């Protein structure tokens, strides 16, 4: 389908039109990487100076339940591999599931489970169905377009 090309989408200064938003996006990513962790400190930050943070409330997000140490104690692991014991009762048999919860940090390295908390069930299934959708969309797209490496753009298949 042929149509008029608005100036902001034309080929004039094409690389500048790609480079500028790319630089802006990169700057946003760097800013987020620096400022984000300060916004939501993790228990690993508290473990570096446990005495100072004793009694501090924090939100623990997307940590994995690694094992149960009795009916009301369990160990969680964050995405960096740091582990901590949590005091509190959650549904049993959830090893491997991800959990987010409100907690209070206790020195030298323990969390008291607070409300609210939520266990994210069927995380693997979610990944699998997402992969199915990703492949489906990719196939649907590639049936119509192919990438021309020389011109560095997608072209419609004839």
């Amino acid at each position, binding site marked *: *389908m*042929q*149509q*008029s*090309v*608005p100036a902001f*989408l*034309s*080929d004039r200064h*094409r690389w500048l*039109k*790609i480079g500028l*938003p*790319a630089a*802006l*996006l990169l700057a*946003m*990513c*760097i*800013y*987020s*990487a620096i*400022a*984000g*962790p300060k*916004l*939501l400190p993790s228990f690993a930050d508290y473990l570096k100076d446990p005495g100072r943070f004793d009694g501090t409330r924090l*939100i623990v*997000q997307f940590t994995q339940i690694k094992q149960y140490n009795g009916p009301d104690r369990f160990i969680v692991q964050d*995405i*960096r591999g740091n582990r901590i014991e949590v005091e509190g009762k959650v549904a049993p048999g959830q090893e491997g599931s991800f959990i*987010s*919860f*409100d907690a209070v940090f206790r020195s030298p390295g323990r969390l008291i489970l607070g409300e609210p*908390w*939520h266990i*994210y*069930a*069927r*995380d693997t*299934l*979610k*990944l699998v*169905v*997402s992969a*199915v*959708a*990703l492949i*489906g*969309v990719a196939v*649907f*797209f590639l*049936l*119509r*377009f192919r990438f021309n490496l020389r011109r*560095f*753009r*997608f*072209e*419609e298949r004839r």
Partner: protein
Amino acid sequence: MPDLLTHVLAGHFITRPKSYRELYFVGLILPDLLGRLPMVFYKNSYWFINPGHTPIGTLLGAYMVTFLFEAPIRKTVFRNLLLGAAFHLFLDLLQRHITDAYYWFFPFTWRTFEVPLFWPDQSVDALPYLLVAVGLFHLLHRRLGRGRRLRMAQSENQR
């Protein structure tokens, strides 16, 4: 985030652009491609890639992707990508979080809000119903389209 299949299936009910529909479906998964997919390979990248899942980050991403297409179709490509991405972000708005919700106004502010209707993992429960609904939708669409074509052919014959 709900799973990508929910995003794609739910996107059927809002709009299905007539031209370059493929790009609408790419748009439906674009925020997750930019701001979540790298986490599958490198979990520590969460804060770095997070802007890719914000409205401004998605807009910039869609704009850059648009230049990977021929100039004459870029307007449609850009519109379809944005349409899909906007619906993706709308669906994400309806999720419940214990931590902060998505940063809608990043990089201007970290303030955020949500309309907490469901937990991210609950989208998988809705998938069978969504699949049936999309199937019925397509069946009806095809039936209605066939009826419309028949009526048009009859009226042309009468003329």
